[in-house]
């Protein structure tokens, strides 16, 4: 069982691990999928924006080139008035913040006619245009403080009034430009940065709380020191990709792309939860499916495990049952073998002795000797059958312990009455010692007697002649004031038992195989019955024994004290036979031999006997008899036509004066307690079991007659 349990636990653990691993793997896969999908989505948007921005740049350059060319074609040099008019038209058409020409000193001549430098312009962007003849896209702060993105290109130098024009340009307001790129992806939580080759923010469209720094790459690097070569990865060449970073303490997807036209980098940063939010439904559905699948898998696994477990359990149960059956059969066979042996032995005695008696019928003395032995064998047979019945009832759980008031002294006396003659026969001394404070208790005297007599008769049996047997009964305080504890010690100095036998002494059909005791009779059921009775009385029994030194049985019983108990009236030792003599007895017995034996025996005892072969006849016989004609009815229980119980009930119901008073004694082979109770219920006055002990019958009739008389 223990191994099975360990196997079960290991199995359960493995299943849990397997399930957990599956869940972990699915979560991991789901996350990976989400990341892949999200990053893919992000990259796609980044590309779109980058492309859009590149397109925008191209358009800007085209516009710039075209207005420079157009101006050159139209005016060649012109004056400021021409220029203002021309640029204003272009601005209206294209919607830039400003269009301008740049003079050699870096002053801008705007479409409004204003001439100004950028604020504190000591940057080198304009130098690159007017001196190095480069096209420049650069962030700047305009003359009035507006953040602009500048597209400037060199032009062939020309004079415009007092200015030497060396460049031209257009500019956007950064915010307007980024807004015009219509960045509304990811619920508008997307931060966009355009960075130059050093990571410096050229333009940005960000939200409150987003990362904001002059050099965004440095800021990212600072917050993510564990990402190696981050700067290189983000800024070098045409690298592009996506990664997960921390930005402002928040998990963020970062997509980096090159902006083809300017050589800048475009960074898109979106909080992971915002991106993943778009995948929420997918995640939820996937999650739900995963959970359902897992539950189904778990249920299937549990079902399979349970199925196999049940099959195993059933198999095991069947094996147990088979084993039990086998054992039962074995036991039955063993029992039958024992019974066969134990019954055959006395039966052999009976038949053998009967044959001998018949052969020597003329030799009265011899014949009486044989008959006496037949009686001994018969008695042994009866006790054997009683034992078998007890064992049967115990095995069936049908054995009932009666809780009646009893007197411990009576119990001791009855023991003494039985054991003394047995001990005397073997010249053994039997000593009873008692320390009893409460004589009256609630108990089952009959079976207590059975216990005591069984143990002591064994003691007598297994103690050689001249040996000693002791019974000590000591009363101790019980578990409460209502109870008394009785310690019964049965000791002898007999042959004792080997340890190997002691271990099995309380099992049925157990007898020690010993040359010294083989000659001793016994069913081997006595100690089994004793132990069973003690346990049914909620007591304990244990035995100590040593071969050659003797045996000691200790029985401990907790019995309720009967504070109101009174001594049973002692029966007078009278000649019971005289109560039978002259009595008119109606005998109802279906078995012819039994009927004949009973008739003969009763007649021997001086009784007048009428017979009935079933209950019906008995009722009729009684009903037809004159009032108070019969003194007693001996009623067999199991009879055809009408059984004894029914017949008794019918008689008691008859409308005649003696219907209630007539003594009805049940005679039955059923010697169980319930039979006694059943007979009482049927209105019978007493119960005797077969084979009929006529002495006991006589005594019973005597007692009942006295009681009736008193009553």
């Amino acid at each position, binding site marked *: 069982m223990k191994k099975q349990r360990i196997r079960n636990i290991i199995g359960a653990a493995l299943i849990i691990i397997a399930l957990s691993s599956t869940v972990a793997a699915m979560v991991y896969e789901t996350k990976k999928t989400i990341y892949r999908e999200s990053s893919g989505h992000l990259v796609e948007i980044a590309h779109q924006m980058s492309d859009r921005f590149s397109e925008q740049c191209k358009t800007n350059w085209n516009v710039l080139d075209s207005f420079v060319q157009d101006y050159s074609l139209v005016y060649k040099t012109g004056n400021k008035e021409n220029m203002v008019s021309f640029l204003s038209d272009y601005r209206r058409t294209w919607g830039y913040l400003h269009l301008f020409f740049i003079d050699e000193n870096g002053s801008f001549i705007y479409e409004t006619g204003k001439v100004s430098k950028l604020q504190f312009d000591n940057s*080198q962007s304009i130098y690159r245009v007017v001196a190095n003849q480069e096209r420049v896209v650069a962030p700047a702060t305009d003359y009035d403080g507006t953040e602009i993105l500048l597209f400037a290109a060199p032009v062939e130098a020309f004079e415009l009034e007092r200015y030497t024009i060396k460049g031209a340009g257009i500019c956007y307001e950064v915010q307007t430009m980024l807004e015009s790129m219509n960045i509304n992806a990811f619920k508008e939580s997307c931060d966009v940065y355009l960075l130059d080759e050093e990571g410096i923010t050229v333009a940005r469209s960000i939200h409150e709380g987003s990362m904001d720094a002059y050099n965004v790459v440095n800021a990212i690097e600072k917050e993510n020191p564990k990402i190696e070569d981050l700067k290189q990865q983000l800024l070098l060449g045409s690298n592009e990709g996506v990664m997960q970073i921390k930005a402002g303490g928040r998990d963020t997807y970062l997509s980096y792309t090159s902006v083809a036209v300017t050589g800048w980098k475009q960074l898109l940063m979106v909080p992971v939860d915002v991106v993943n939010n778009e995948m929420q439904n997918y995640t939820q559905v996937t999650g739900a499916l995963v959970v359902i699948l897992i539950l189904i898998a778990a249920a299937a696994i549990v079902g399979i495990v349970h199925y196999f477990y049940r099959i195993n359990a059933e198999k095991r149960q069947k094996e147990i049952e088979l084993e039990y059956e086998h054992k039962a059969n074995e036991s039955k066979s063993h029992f039958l073998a024992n019974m066969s042996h134990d019954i055959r032995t006395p039966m052999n005695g009976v038949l053998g002795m009967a044959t001998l008696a018949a052969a020597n019928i003329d030799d009265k003395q011899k014949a009486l000797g044989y008959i006496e032995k037949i009686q001994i064998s018969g008695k042994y047979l009866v006790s054997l059958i009683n034992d078998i019945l007890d064992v049967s009832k115990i095995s069936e759980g049908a054995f009932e312990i009666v809780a009646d008031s009893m007197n411990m002294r009576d119990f001791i006396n009855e023991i003494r009455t039985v054991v003394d003659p047995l001990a005397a026969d073997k010249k053994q001394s039997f000593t009873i010692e008692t320390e009893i404070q409460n004589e009256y208790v609630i108990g089952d005297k009959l079976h207590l007697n059975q216990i005591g007599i069984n143990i002591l008769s064994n003691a007598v049996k297994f103690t050689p002649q001249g040996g000693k047997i002791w019974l000590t009964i000591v009363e101790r305080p019980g578990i409460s004031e209502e109870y008394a504890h009785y310690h019964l010690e049965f000791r002898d100095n007999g042959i004792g038992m080997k340890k190997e036998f002691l271990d099995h002494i309380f099992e049925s059909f157990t007898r020690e195989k010993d040359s010294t005791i083989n000659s001793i009779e016994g069913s081997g059921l006595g100690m089994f019955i004793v132990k069973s009775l003690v346990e049914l009385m909620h007591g304990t029994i244990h035995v100590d024994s040593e071969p050659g030194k003797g045996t000691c049985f200790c029985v401990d019983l907790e019995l309720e004290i009967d504070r109101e108990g009174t001594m049973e009236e002692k029966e007078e030792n009278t000649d019971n036979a005289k109560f039978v003599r002259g009595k008119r007895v109606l005998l109802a017995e279906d078995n012819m031999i039994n009927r004949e034996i009973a008739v003969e025996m009763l007649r021997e005892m001086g009784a007048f006997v009428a017979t009935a072969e079933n209950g019906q006849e008995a009722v009729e016989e009684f009903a037809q008899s004159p009032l108070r004609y019969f003194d007693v009815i001996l009623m067999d229980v199991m009879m055809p036509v009408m059984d004894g119980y029914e017949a008794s009930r019918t008689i008691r119901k008859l409308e005649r004066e003696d219907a209630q008073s007539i003594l009805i004694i049940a005679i039955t082979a059923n010697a169980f307690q319930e039979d006694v109770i059943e007979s009482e219920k049927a209105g019978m006055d007493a119960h005797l079991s077969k084979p009929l002990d006529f002495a006991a019958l006589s005594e019973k009739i005597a007692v009942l007659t006295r009681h009736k008389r008193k009553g």
Partner: protein
Amino acid sequence: MRKVYKRVLAVCIVIVFLALISVGCSKEDKEDNVFTVNACKTRYVPKSILDKVRKEYPEMEIRVEMYGGANFTLEAAERLDHYDIPDLFVTTRNDLEIDTYQDNLLDLSSYEVLNRYITQAIDSMNMNGSVYFIPNFTSLTGLVYDKNVFREHGWKAPHSYEELVSLCEQVEKTGIQGVGGAWDNPSAYSNVLACTMAADFYSTPEGTTWFYDFVQGKAKGEGVIEPYIANYIRWYEDGIFDYEIQENRAVQREKFDNGEIAMMYGLIGNFKSDDEHDYGLIPFFKTGTDEAYYPTATAGYFALNKKLGEKGNEKKLEVGLRILDLLSTEEGQKDMMRGDACYSFLRGFKGDLNEITESYQDVVGQNHFAPMNVDMNTLAATATELIKMLEGELTQEEYIRSCDDIKRNEITEAYTGEYLFTAKENFTEKQTVQYFAAALQDYAGTQIGMVTPSVNEQGEFSNPMTGIASKFYKGDIYSWPLTRNTLTAIDGTSGWAKMSTGTISGETLYELLEDGICWKQAEDRMDNEYYYDKGGMTSPFYYETAGLDVEFTSDHKIKSIQLNDGTPVKKSGSYTIATLHENVPDNYLEDLQIEEEETILEIAAKYGKTGMKGDKNNLPMERDLEKEKKN
């Protein structure tokens, strides 16, 4: 019993040990809670901002290290070069020395604060994607004039170079000096050069680019700046500036205030209009055009110590960034400007230049502001040569070559002048003051030399400003860098602080050495708003001496005192001493004499070069004859 005794003893030792460790730790923790800022009387983080931060971070002590010398620019540069900077470092120049900055300063480029400034201002400080400073406000330079005076005389604000020349002629005809300035100071000539070059050259894209290349050693002056040097000389030749005046700023300013000078060259931030004066600012005219530019001078830069970025300094970093954050607001900028008409690099800052530039709205409207790109190392190092060039002793070409040579040899300001001596290790402030006391004693031949530091332990200035500042760093000490240890003369005359000699009674000497000297606090506390008490006198300034062997008790009472020759100093005696003028107040001395020939700068240089007799054995210094020969 003995075992028990030993165990108890062992436990006690462990407890004492742990207690000592914890005391040590707590001391260290205490230092971790000190945030330092350097400052001088004109360059600092406004007290209002520091007080606000103090309230926000009560657990942090914000300590200001006050500088009391005359060359804050060099002082800051020296501190930077010697890795001796506070947590918040205030300096006046940005020489784009990327290596030095990388080693000392925290890269601010990853912080949002830079985005509050206009793009061009931060771009100009960008070094390979890193930015180490945020800029202070900027002040306009030009020729300051009093509109009331002009009105009185019927003068008109000039709108071209020619008009300016004729104005100067007109002014001088009335016996009034045309343009005043700190003409005793070679730096003033360098600054004027920076202004003319701003208008002529730095205002152009090429000029801006050339300057950054030159500073970084990538460009030469030769072949590029000749025309602009010629233009500069023209300002003198045409009589706008006069290099022969040789008066110091104070004198010239007084004359200007009295109407004896028509225009004053300088930063508009130094002039405040009031009921009497209504100032305007004439820009610098670009040669050969009708354009004019206001040269701009950034008042300083703020940086954070690189150590603030290290683990364990998170709180300090937070404090540092918070100060930068507060400085980078309109309110913070105005606090720094102290109400003057200045301009800020802050985006959207609304300056108030209307009154000042009333006559030059076109200049302002066109954003004609040009940076006074002064390569301080080069120009300061060649200031003397510049004057020589003006005096005709050097040709323009020679001057330009000398500039290129200095740049090529990477000679910094700290290595200009004559080689004096080599400091074997960093001097303490006290040792540095002792050096000057010894120099004074040696030069004057008195029994005693004594002088105080210019800032006391509480960070208060002496009044009048006198004493010795800062300390020598390990390495070669040259004569020009002594300017960061000294102050200018207090009597308004030209040049550096003067020496005074006389005799002093033993009793007074005892008194001064034991109690130090306390001054009446200056009335204009704008100079030092950090440490002045609410009124009365300053805390004591204690003297360092030469020629004396003094031993003090723990409560700073004289335990023993004797002259170096072993003669005991008696209260009843009388002793000759040399000190800085008014450092020992004149009325404490008999036979008072003020040295007029040599200033403290020269005296200290001479001592370093030839003297070092007095306390030379006590100071960690030596002379390298090889280096002296190179002089």
